């Protein structure tokens, strides 16, 4: 354990980042984080910890919305206050479909966004990384590989050495 958030290498492009992540994995580093200004294909797979899929939530949201939407209509039109509307049957199911469908989409979409934001631990307005020099470029044109300091037997010196071995633009210490 150490007081550091981690040690971080600033890299020039997505290739370097991918390679670095790969090596870090081979070298058996734990708590590896990779930052890039746009999604880099295959990068997440190089890091441990498989992100929980958003799709499950979307499915659940959709089912909830659809079933709930239909139930609402059926209950209010058939059970709560049955009224003869233009001689139509109380449970006019074909005419209940559109609302049920819209509710499906609505809840599924909400679930997707919810899952993404919560899954990513957002909102997180303050973060140690934001104090790190050059990290503002992570949303522009720089790529970062960070070895977290909060893992078992983290050795700052080894981390430095490893990151230097990647020939980065520079190595940055991130205070926590």
């Amino acid at each position, binding site marked *: 354990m150490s007081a550091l958030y981690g040690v971080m290498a600033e890299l020039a492009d997505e290739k370097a980042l991918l390679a670095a992540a790969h090596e870090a994995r081979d070298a058996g580093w734990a708590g590896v984080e990779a930052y890039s200004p746009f999604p880099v294909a295959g990068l997440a797979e190089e890091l441990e910890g498989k992100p929980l899929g958003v799709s499950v939530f979307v499915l659940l949201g959709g089912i909830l919305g659809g079933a709930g939407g239909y139930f609402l209509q059926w209950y209010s039109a058939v059970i709560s206050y049955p*009224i003869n509307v233009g*001689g*139509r049957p109380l449970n006019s199911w074909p005419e209940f479909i559109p609302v049920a469908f819209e509710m499906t989409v609505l809840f599924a979409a909400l679930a997707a966004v919810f899952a993404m934001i919560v899954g990513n631990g957002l909102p997180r307005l303050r973060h140690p990384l934001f104090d790190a020099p050059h990290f503002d470029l992570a949303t522009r044109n720089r790529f970062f590989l960070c070895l977290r300091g909060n893992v078992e037997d983290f050795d700052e010196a080894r981390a430095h050495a490893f990151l230097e071995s990647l020939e980065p633009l520079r190595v940055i210490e991130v205070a926590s």
Partner: protein
Amino acid sequence: MSPTPITRRDFLKLAGAATALATGACTAPPDEIVPYVRPRAIADGIAQFYATAMTMQGRALGVLVQSDMGRPTKVEGNPAHPSSLGATDVFAQASILELWDPARSRTLRHRGTPATREALVAEWRSALAGLEARGGEGLRILTGYVGSATLRAQLDGLARTYPAMQRHEWEPLHRDNSLEGARLAFGRRVDCAYRFDAADVVVAVDADPLGEGPGWVRHARDFASRRAPQSMSRLYAVESFPSITGDMADHRVALAPAALERWLAALDAALRGEASTPLPLVEAAAHDLLAHRGRSLVVAGEGLPPAAHALVHRINARLGAPGATVSYLPAVSDVACAESVAALSRDMRAGRVQALLILGGNPAYDAPADVEFGAALARVPLSVHVSLYEDETSAACAWHVPRAHYLEEWSDATAHEGTVSIVQPLVAPLHGGVSIHEAVAMLGDDAASPRDGVMRALHLEGAAWHTALRDGVVASTAPAPLALTVRDVAFDPADVADGWTVVFRPDAAVHGGEFAPNAWLQELPRPESKLVWDNAAYVSATSAARLGAKSGDLVEVARGARRVVAPLWILPGHADDAVSLPLGYGRERAGPVGSHIGFDAYPLRDGGFAWSAPCSVRKAGGAHALVTTQLHTRMEGREPAKHMTLAEALSAHSAAHAERPVESLYPDWPYDSYRWAMAIDLNACIGCNACTIACQSENNIPTVGKEEAGRGRSMHWIRVDRYDDGPTPLHQPVPCMQCEDAPCEAVCPVGATVHDSEGINVQIYNRCVGTRFCSNNCPYKVRRFNFFHYSAGLGERPVEGSNPQVTTRMRGVMEKCNYCLQRITRARLQADKEGRRIAEGEVVTACQAACPTRAISFGDLSDPASAVAQVKRSPRGYTLLEELNTRPRTTYLARVSNPNPQAANE
């Protein structure tokens, strides 16, 4: 009425509402309960009905007036009254609005400034004192036709005190010609009472007995009773203006006035077997009349000259009509109006009139132009005018006395066939008006209370009085028919001069002008043209073409120096070379509603030419925006109003339209209790619009004003469509069809219009948000929308005068016919309390009650014996737009005409 150009106040209202919301002041304002001081016999919330009578031109229509918490709210016909038999006309229906009209006169005025009754009486008495010496010479009294025995008695009383006093009579829509004609034929002035129920063949010459004039409501009922295919009468109409009678005729010819006289002469010749100038229909009519001796009738219109009337009397005598299809009774008046008013005017100008008392009427506006009555009035030192409104005559008189409405006064009246009925007040004068009787009493100091006066004049008291009061008629007061011998009078018809003839007609809504302040009538689509809020110069298409003018263009109608500029309207079925000018418009002082609209045709009208006169017509340049509620009067082959000949009607076999016509995708809804339904017989409907106004009165329907009506925003729940491209003009009343599979309901997002368990398509105003989808989806377009806050508009009844059983609708909600739900509810609760079902005929809708011809039947379809169920089984029955399978509860019976085969091949 109109949305009243939005003032600053509305913005304040809005601001107020906003702040109210902001401050969360949503709790309702505390409202009060104000009980009586002395308990009343009748519990509040229960409607009472009182019998009285409404008099026009000296002849009365018996009515029953509904009173809620002591406030008159609705007029119904009096079934016991011979002129009504339970039905009413538009004027009686609209009289309730007249009663409540805030524009009615409220103050007694002397030369325009408020004055006291005492001051008036004092001045009058002193004036009379001066005249007494010479037996009251210089004292004149001007009335309309006097139908009230009480008034007659009072005037005779005055005449006894002032032997030299002179009485004058003036009715703008007088009957000088017919009464004079009777004098020529019989040696005395008599009125005719027609019996259309006894007539197999009727020939109406320039006459509209089914559409206007004394007794027309009864005439229409009698006529309709003979139009059922089983025993169908035949009607010939020869006229210049397409009247209701003409619309209902089996044969109709349109002729200019002069030609009408020739036609009549030809008919007479044909009847006498002489060779006559071949004119259309003459032969056929003559044969038909002769073939039905004793069961045929010829009716002459007021427009024909006295000699023509005399001729018609002779013809009827030859046809054996007297006693069978026509009977004669003492005339409403022995005075020839035109001469009488002319004489008065002459004397006034000559300064021979010191004191003039004008009881009702508005001569300064409607007297013959050539007598220049208004100007003459100025020469009278003391003139007193008693009238409902401060009108043109009030302005020209020294004194104006607000008159009590007929629903506020004690009096008596005479039916078209002579039966006497009592006029009783429903409410104390709202604006402190005095009845004519009180006025006369006041001036001729007669202490008796008006009620006693009536009792005395009718020689009624005790039980007899109370019976008469309850029934609305005094039993067996109808005079025995006069037996008269007809003299031979020479009749040489006016020779048909080429050039234009102007025809003066009472307006179908404002009549002679006395109803101009009435917004309901102003907005009533005229039967022939569907015009509202205006009158127009009606001509035929050919004549219009000759003028090179189209509907709306201004034309100038001139008689010598006197000229009137009027908007033209092309009327199918109008005679060529004639221009018809409805009277009663162009009023200067008819309140905020009736002033300065339309054009005044009276300036063209002389004592000598009361109904038609030669004139010149030319395009005046410019146009006037006329508003009609029906832009399209052709059926386009869709046959919304069906028509069949008598032969077809008799051969057709029952279509059983009462039962559901076609299969539906939807499972049937069970209707286990009542199944309300309506059937409208187009063969009976004469298009008189009584239903429209009755509905307006019953359901608190607002008017919208000319501009809004022009935008297609009239609010009538039952409109009467007119189609001109059928074999005969067709009238079709269209209320909500109460579809069982209602298209309107399915598309309302908030369920503001739904079905109730008795199958009524109800409109829940308080739930309506105003998407107007229902109206779009209504194939019959019977839904009406409050585009503005019409119910608060100009010319509306104050809330006290409206029906407390019907919600007044606010801006932004949809409304429509609901089969008079409030009446059904009243009956249901009553029956329910007594633990029984609603009896057949217990629920009568407002339109049904008003209809003179009983064209509308209404009732419970679940009872196969009910009248409506039987009517619906008629072979003539059909459903409007049946192919849409909306399964309406309201259906129609086809119109039938009974043409004369002989005429067909003429």
